[in-house]
């Protein structure tokens, strides 16, 4: 699997409240509507201009804060194909995998990517190519890859339970 997209670059500690404000957590339930509020309190232009397979590149601790899964859902339905960061907050990392949104952790790449440039990521090879060069990133653990490959945790669990029942 590989992905090619335009970069939206942000800083450190992008939290779940600026990705998807708490005031919407129980009032907006349609993923497409969630997408219209993605990153609303950080970059109001983002939701209007983001295109399919665009890439978010950010600093440390991306997705810190709340456990709200909508912080992933809104980005995914806005079209984001992958998030590259120096590091991810723990629950956000799990939520992204569980919703089938791939993540790349690569400090060096983040430091060399500029906003607006086009980046290519090859997941099998663990390579990210940008204007300034090619950077390697470690593959995700196997237990995690299985979930991602099944399109998220819900389809993954569904598949496993069917296998167990011998269906």
């Amino acid at each position: 699997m590989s992905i090619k997209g335009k970069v939206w670059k942000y800083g450190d500690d992008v939290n779940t409240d600026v990705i998807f404000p708490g005031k919407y957590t129980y009032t907006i339930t349609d993923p497409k509507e969630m997408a219209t509020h993605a990153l609303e309190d950080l970059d109001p232009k983002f939701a209007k201009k983001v295109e399919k397979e665009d890439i978010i590149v950010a600093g440390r601790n991306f997705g810190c804060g709340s456990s709200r899964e909508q912080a992933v859902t809104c980005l995914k339905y806005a079209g984001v194909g992958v998030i590259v960061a120096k590091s991810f907050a723990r629950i956000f990392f799990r939520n992204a995998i569980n919703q089938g949104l791939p993540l790349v952790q690569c400090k060096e790449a983040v430091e060399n990517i500029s906003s607006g440039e086009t980046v290519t990521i090859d997941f099998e090879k663990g390579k990210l190519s940008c204007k300034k060069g090619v950077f390697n990133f470690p593959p995700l653990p196997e237990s995690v890859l299985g979930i991602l490959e099944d399109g998220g945790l819900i389809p993954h669990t569904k598949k496993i339970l069917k296998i167990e029942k011998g269906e």
Partner: protein
Amino acid sequence: MSKTFAEKILALKSGKESVVSGEIVIVSPDVVMSHDNTAAIAKKFKQIGVEKVKYPEKIVIPLDHCVPAATEKYAVNHKEIREFVREQKIENFYDINTGVCHQVLPEKGHIIPGTLVLGADSHTTTYGAFGAFSAGIGRSEVASIWATDEIWLRVPETIKINIKGEIPPEIYPKDIILHIIGDLGADGALYKAVEFSGKVIREMSIGGRMTLCNMAVEMGAKIGYVEPDEKTVQWLAARTDKKYEIVKSDLDANFEKIIDYDISKLEPQIACPHTVDNVKPVSEVAGTKINQVLIGTCTNGRLEDLKIASEILRGKKVFNRVRLLVFPASIEVFAQAMELGILQELVKSGAVIMNPGCGPCLGAHEGVLAPGEVCLSTANRNFKGRMGCKEAEVFLASPATVAISSLYGEITDVRGDIK
């Protein structure tokens, strides 16, 4: 071989002889918590194609995030949860008259040492104050656990934080944890287990330990943990007759880091907008004008917090431009505060006493902010837009600092002479 608390408990829960930090294990939790997000989780659960939850007795569901319902949408959400709870025969359901999940679960005896608790809420780290391994997870994961009773977890490395010295007057657990978060940063304990220990912890109340563990996630931690002691045992004796075994780190366990803090000279601490690790001593921000103050939430809405506030406010009036909102963390706290006359004192000073719940902490209702307004709060987050408005500012502090500041209409050093 010597082991940390995290290694021991995850070995126990994964049925392995021993595990090491960094290893990924499949575990079966003892308690699974969800709150107002239960309706959304139930929809995901149905997508899995399973009719019934595997272990209804492991599931605990308090309603707290927007109680009572503020709008029709919230009302429908609550209604769906009540229907699901009935359908699945989930007995541990607490409706809108109970309180904030992180206060309610321990109060109702669901939290005991040596257990694995997972919750669809980032502040699930709170229960580490009772010696449980307790971490936040996402909605899909809760749905999946309901169906399978299993989840993967990575065994975290442990950072041990020793807190030494004598607690200075007017310094509270909130000041201590804000200081630590300010020092280590918002990702200073990313993916780690944080074990709070030392003389100050042993002297600290259970409520104070809950404040510390509650905010461990604000430095990225997977869990917070305090080794249970006689105080824990006594606290639990009044709540539950469940049998438990205390699990603790070996003294010579492989801690990733041991960090010492001497708090003997600590000043009151303030987390400034818009990150929790933007912490400054009160002397640097004293004089900042405020419009609203909030005492409550899962961080500081306990009886001891309300008591401190009422002692500071007794016989005095809240500054005329300031709105003081008080949210007892649970109905039990509310009733005790009422019996002790604490709520009466607060009302006389001009406080608005609200029902137990999360209130405006996450910007849902009951006191959200307007553009340009400033709130000083005892909550745990001050992110931009957190209290419903991205052009507002939120500062975080201890209940004492919040109470004294409400009298002067500006951030005030609680150690100063009362004017």
